């Protein structure tokens, strides 16, 4: 029996404090909704106790990671003595147990200050802790019962002399930031979800959209950043030219994003016209449930087999919690249904509120497609006993027909009016859109022709036109506003929500051009080349294999292939690597990348032979870098929209 050190003991105690504090907060909140006053203060104290407990647990875990306390199986499984400090720190969320702790801590860290949000009534404020307290209690319960990052070895051994280390694929700065960003987005959703539930429970009529706007923007922005960073990491680190795989882990982050995006537009209609309250409440609650559902899908083993799931208690807890939440949340929504009626009937299709209804429909369709595509193997096995897999072909067939109308709506709907749309205001915008579409289509067609690339598929052609149609009216509007305010920069950027929102739209349009261009025009060719041998990849692009050198580095051995990539007559010397991390981990690749605004060329080293030859895969994807540019523009738009005065 090994005695654990004080920080670890404090951390274990902290986990119990999370459970006790959040349980107390939950009970006191329920009582306070009837009795008020002192109970509400007591509930608040419970939340603070839980937060302090979570901080203690996280500190204990980090202490153990930095002191290589391998008497904790978690520490032994995600870290090793030779791991650099950054990855020792990020090993916190290197696996399930620690991720749960991070999640729990973030929920509490958001919820405690968020309860003070200005502009919410006293009764609603009192009911606010219901959802965050329940969430923290659930996570604490799961950790204490199934996945405690601070528990010792069964029987209490001192553990191995060194840990297994962090998966080499995860030893990358992008991988250090990507999960916390996603978790920030997921857990940030607890706050608007908590207000939604509080409003439903109290039956108050107040409008929550304005006070919670910046919370929603923050969660939405961080979720978007997390998804983008994950994609960027997959492209650069996995090294196989892919940037989105429709993997359940990715879909799990996309689903709440889709629900939240629908909500963010619905909230506009609610704020301007008092409409869509039911939809909006439902979407917020759904978005919250989807963050947990994603975790359930990817962690319970249910995707492998329904039977594996039934043996894992963790999965049943997640499913049970989600089911109870949905029953209660949508039960109360149904109960309040008649109180939440829309005061105004929706206008026609050519109005803002009409377009937002279609926005909800299309985002609902995208969500349904992702949800069904991800859970189909489970549903089919439950229904027929046969395992099937859906996967990429399904998404390739169903997503574009729903996404392209969504993009089209995005180009035109911002110029509609509430209630009615004046022809005189719409016509110049439509003209600017068509002109923009023609100009951008022409420009990109020229760029394609100059590189000898084909048209890239109908989805790409449509996306390119839509980009122009989004850009044209924005530029026209900007010039018009600039003239009207006489060049005063302050007056020009006075409407952060207007310009921020348009910038997000523009970024999405750019991203769509990148996504459809890269997937529609992807070419992948495999070569085996002797030293100094040259191969033609496509017209205008050739690859010369120079030779291979072997290097021993701190954590791995690397086979470094030197190549010369020639594009349009210009030579680019590049290096592509394979790495061997020893027997604990399989090898990884570091691709060579030549990227410009027209296309990305990635060279992956597959294998090296003793005679000095090497085999490569060369992947060419048109307009791929537009993904990252578009993503960055959107994130800037989120920041802009979050400025004061929005």
């Amino acid at each position, binding site marked *: 029996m090994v005695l654990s050190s004080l920080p670890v003991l404090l951390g274990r105690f902290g986990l119990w404090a999370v459970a006790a504090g959040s349980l107390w907060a939950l009970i006191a909140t329920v009582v306070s909704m009837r009795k008020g006053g002192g109970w509400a203060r007591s509930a608040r104290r419970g939340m603070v106790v839980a937060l302090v407990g979570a901080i203690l647990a996280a500190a204990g875990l980090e202490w153990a990671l930095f002191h290589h306390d391998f008497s904790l199986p978690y520490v032994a499984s995600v870290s090793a003595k030779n791991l650099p400090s950054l990855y020792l720190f990020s090993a916190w969320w*290197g696996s399930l147990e620690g991720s749960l702790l991070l999640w729990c801590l973030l929920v509490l860290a958001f919820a405690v200050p968020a309860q003070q949000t200005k502009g919410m009534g006293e009764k609603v404020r009192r009911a606010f802790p219901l959802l965050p307290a329940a969430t923290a209690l659930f996570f604490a319960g799961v950790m204490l019962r199934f996945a405690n990052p601070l528990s010792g070895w069964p029987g209490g051994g001192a553990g191995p002399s060194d840990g*297994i280390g962090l998966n080499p694929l995860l030893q990358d700065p992008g991988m250090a930031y990507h999960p916390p960003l996603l978790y920030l987005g997921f857990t940030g959703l607890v706050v608007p979800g908590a207000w939604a539930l509080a409003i439903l429970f109290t039956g108050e009529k107040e409008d929550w959209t304005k006070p919670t706007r910046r919370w929603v923007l923050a969660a939405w922005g961080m979720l978007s950043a997390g998804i983008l960073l994950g994609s960027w*990491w997959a492209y650069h680190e996995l090294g196989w030219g892919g940037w989105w795989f429709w*993997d359940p882990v990715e879909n799990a982050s996309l689903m709440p994003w889709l629900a939240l995006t629908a909500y963010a537009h619905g909230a506009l209609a609610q704020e301007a016209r008092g409409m869509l309250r039911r939809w909006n409440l439902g979407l917020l609650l759904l978005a919250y449930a989807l963050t947990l559902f994603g975790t359930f899908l990817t962690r319970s083993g249910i995707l*492998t087999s329904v039977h594996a799931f039934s043996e*894992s208690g963790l999965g049943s807890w997640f499913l049970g919690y989600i089911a109870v939440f949905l029953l209660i949340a949508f039960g109360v929504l149904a109960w309040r249904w008649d109180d939440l009626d829309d005061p105004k009937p929706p206008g026609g299709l050519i109005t803002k509120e009409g377009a937002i209804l279609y926005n909800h429909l299309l985002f609902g*369709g995208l969500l349904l497609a992702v949800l069904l595509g991800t859970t189909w193997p489970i549903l089919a096995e439950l229904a027929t006993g046969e395992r099937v*897999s859906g996967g990429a072909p*399904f998404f390739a067939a169903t997503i574009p027909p729903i996404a392209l109308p969504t993009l089209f709506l995005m180009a035109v709907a911002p110029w509609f009016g509430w209630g009615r749309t004046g022809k005189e205001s719409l016509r110049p915008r439509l003209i600017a859109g068509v002109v923009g579409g023609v100009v951008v289509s022409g420009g990109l067609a020229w760029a394609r022709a100059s590189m000898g690339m084909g048209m890239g598929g109908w989805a790409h052609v449509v996306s390119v036109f839509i980009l122009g149609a989004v850009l044209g009216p924005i530029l026209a509007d900007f010039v018009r506003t600039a003239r009207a305010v006489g060049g005063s920069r302050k007056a020009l950027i006075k409407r952060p929500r207007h310009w921020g929102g348009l910038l997000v739209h523009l970024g999405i349009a750019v991203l769509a051009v990148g996504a459809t261009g890269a997937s529609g025009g992807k070419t992948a060719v495999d070569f085996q080349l002797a030293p100094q041998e040259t191969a033609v990849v496509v017209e205008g692009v050739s690859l010369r294999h120079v030779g291979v050198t072997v290097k021993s580095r701190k954590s791995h051995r690397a086979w470094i292939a030197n190549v010369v990539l020639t594009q349009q007559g210009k030579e680019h010397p590049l290096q592509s690597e394979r790495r061997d991390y020893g027997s604990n981990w399989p090898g990884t690749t570091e691709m060579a990348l030549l990227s410009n605004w027209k296309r990305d060329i990635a060279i992956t080293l597959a*294998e090296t032979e003793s005679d000095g030859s090497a085999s490569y895969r060369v992947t060419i994807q048109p307009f791929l870098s537009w993904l990252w540019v578009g993503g960055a523009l959107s994130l800037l738009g989120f920041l802009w929209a979050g400025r004061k005065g929005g």
Partner: protein
Amino acid sequence: MNRQAKTLLVAAVAIGWLVFSGIKEASVYFKYPSELTPTVLAELGHEELRIGGMVAGGSLEREGSDIRFVMVDDGEGQVLVHYVGIPPDMFAEGRGAVVEGSFTMEGVFEAHTLMVKHGEDYSAEEHPDRENIRSDFGTGIPDPGG
């Protein structure tokens, strides 16, 4: 029902139809090697199929981008797989893999897609086998896209 509601309903039905008809077309069977008994094989014929299992130790042969290996699982039964292309990172003997393709006349599974299986083996009851790949977050292991 007003016109707006009717149009919305028609659009909703169209989207629903698109999604549900798509999923039926795109699904393929998923089997483990031990399930591929002669009867099942006869039924399947040359149908598109996914097989999940482990790359048997000592079975991996590579000549350039020409790859042959045997896939096994817990039960009895094995499948000889042939794949042309570059396997993804983390592909190795003793690790999980998923292949998609169909059986040839000779009974060899001709795979056009080779993926690495990951992140699904979590079990918290006993501390899980830490040798297994545990892609606990972020993006999945890539599909080289055959």
